[in-house]
């Protein structure tokens, strides 16, 4: 009886313990299902196609070329491997340039008529490129459908443009987002680390116990404050300050993000580093002092090496956190999806992108999927960071 009850409880506990595993698997399932849906799709909006005159030798274009053509950055077919001829861009609305309202009367009721008219236009203009609804394309040989290169991983990572909602083709190049994320995160750690370590050493070894007893809870309190509050503070104080100091057009810059992130990371770094330093056994510290080493030599040559693996793990975890941090960054970096050249310009990070755009993207659409793909990247980064930390701490255990 007792035994059976124990077994049941154990089974129940076992089930609980599998919840995290299941959650991770579900995260992988849902994120990657949506995220990978993006790849292999044509970047044009569903139900639309790009067509040219059937005599046009060009039959394939990639997303960037299409975008440049429609943005009038490319104006001659020669530039995309065609004849030397200027490009005539045709969008649905442009039909009115070719036909009067009367000629198109009844368009709304008679789709075939509109289609034939469009076809006519395409037929008439050998240099035309048309972005039209697939429904408006009659099955006739006068127009040629351009094959647009499908979205692939390389374009995704190396693409320098992030225009998830542009027409006729959306662009999903996340390179600027990655760069933005890295710039902001690494600068944040660069700022936080020296200050954090200095403060940790100060608190652990130099400060009088009274001072430490005041500082310690203060730091703990700061580490618990929500990121929106830091973001809010950044927005209200740091952003205007930077704008004024560097005489910038906007204060929302990568630097602002880094500073806010650094402030957020500091309490964690201080706490972990201080704990690691204080975990050096008193007798080891005393042994060094007893050999005539000064207090500073003891800290520098004995206690910090002793704590180093703990500190390293903390720093790596800190980077992971910074990369994943969303709200504070979203609020202060300005969110421009461009490849950064200077830290003093607006930037956009991966998590901020998701947070800012998910609300506006249509569920199941390409944009939506692209955001999930970003989520996948974040997830993978996290995984790598965690495995690294795991390895470091395992090594540390071996050495003790």
């Amino acid at each position, binding site marked *: 009886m007792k035994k059976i009850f124990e077994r049941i409880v154990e089974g129940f506990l076992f089930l609980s313990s599998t919840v995290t595993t299941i959650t991770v698997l579900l995260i992988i399932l849902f994120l990657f299902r949506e995220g990978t849906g993006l790849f292999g799709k044509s970047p044009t909006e569903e139900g639309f196609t790009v067509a040219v005159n059937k005599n046009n030798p060009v039959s394939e274009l990639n997303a960037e070329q299409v975008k440049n053509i429609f943005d009038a950055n490319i104006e001659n077919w020669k530039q995309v491997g065609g004849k030397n001829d200027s490009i005539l861009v045709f969008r649905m609305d442009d039909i009115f340039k070719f036909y009067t309202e009367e000629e198109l009367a009844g368009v709304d009721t008679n789709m075939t008529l509109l289609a034939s008219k469009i076809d006519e236009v395409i037929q008439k203009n050998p240099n035309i490129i048309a972005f039209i609804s697939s429904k408006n394309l009659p099955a006739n040989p006068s127009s040629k459908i351009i094959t647009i290169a499908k979205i692939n991983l390389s374009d995704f990572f190396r693409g320098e443009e992030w225009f998830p909602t542009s027409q006729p083709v959306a662009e999903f190049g996340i390179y600027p987002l990655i760069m933005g994320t890295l710039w902001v995160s690494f600068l944040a750690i660069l700022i936080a680390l020296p200050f954090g370590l200095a403060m940790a050493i100060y608190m652990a070894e130099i400060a009088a116990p009274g001072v430490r007893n005041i500082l310690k809870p203060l730091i703990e309190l700061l580490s618990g404050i929500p990121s929106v509050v830091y973001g809010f503070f950044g927005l209200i104080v740091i952003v205007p300050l930077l704008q004024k100091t560097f005489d910038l057009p906007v204060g929302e810059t990568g630097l602002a993000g880094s500073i806010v992130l650094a402030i957020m990371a500091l309490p964690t770094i201080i706490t972990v580093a201080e704990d690691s330093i204080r975990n050096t056994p008193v*007798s080891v510290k005393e042994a060094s002092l*007893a*050999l005539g080493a000064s207090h500073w030599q003891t800290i520098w040559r004995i206690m910090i090496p002793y704590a180093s693996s703990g500190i390293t793990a903390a720093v790596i975890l800190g980077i992971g956190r910074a990369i994943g941090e969303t709200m504070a960054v979203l609020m202060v970096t300005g969110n421009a999806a461009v490849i950064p050249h200077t830290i003093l310009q607006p930037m956009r990070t991966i998590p901020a992108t998701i947070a800012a755009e998910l609300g506006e993207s249509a569920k199941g659409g390409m944009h939506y999927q692209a955001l999930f793909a970003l989520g996948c990247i974040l997830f993978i980064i996290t995984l790598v960071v965690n495995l690294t930390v795991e390895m470091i701490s395992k090594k540390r255990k071996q050495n003790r």
Partner: protein
Amino acid sequence: MIEAKNLNLYYGAFHALKDINLKVAEKSVTALIGPSGCGKSTFLRTFNRMNDLIPGVKIEGDIIVDDENIYQKGIDVDRLRKRVGMVFQKPNPFAKSIFENVAYGMRVNGISNEKVIKEAVEQSLKQSALWDEVKDSLKKSAYALSGGQQQRLCIARALAVEPTILLMDEPASALDPISTAKIEELIHELKKKYTILIVTHNMQQAARVSDFTAFFYMGSLIEYDLTKTIFTNPAKQQTQNYVTGRFG
């Protein structure tokens, strides 16, 4: 010459050492014994001012080491500690190689000539009877050694800075009997060159290793005499009760 004169020590309001007067004989082993909390460790740590690290400690009276009152103003504590080596209860090597553990004391004291360091390391390891066991693995982590070896490494580390006095706070209490016997043997060798003070909970150990024994009780030095005398014919009833196990 080491001597405590009218030494009083307070942890805040707690009077931990009461008017201690004791002259330690040179090149001999002096054991400090007494029940838990009687102040043995506290007393030991006054000789290298290790108590300075504890907040709220107040010390009155003199400790004379080599004709110098180490509690007077202007004493260079780091230099003092170089002269007074210390070995702790649990083996506590640094997270460095065996070699670097022993070399550490010299490096922090400004010796940078590698040849000198190398010789001193070998010398110290030989003195602590560890050389033969580690001479082929000096580059290995000190943590790879057994507990008893680690403790001898800690002794070598203390010897490398050429102290004249060695303080040992229960140096064998964390070790098994065989390692303990080795450490005791080592202490017996070392007293030819060093003045050794050792705190031990193990009365038999005090009897075996020391030439003189000081019995502490409740912060006072009750009796201080030849170890032989303490264990065959102590002058004070309290001491007799303690060594014969009739205490408390």
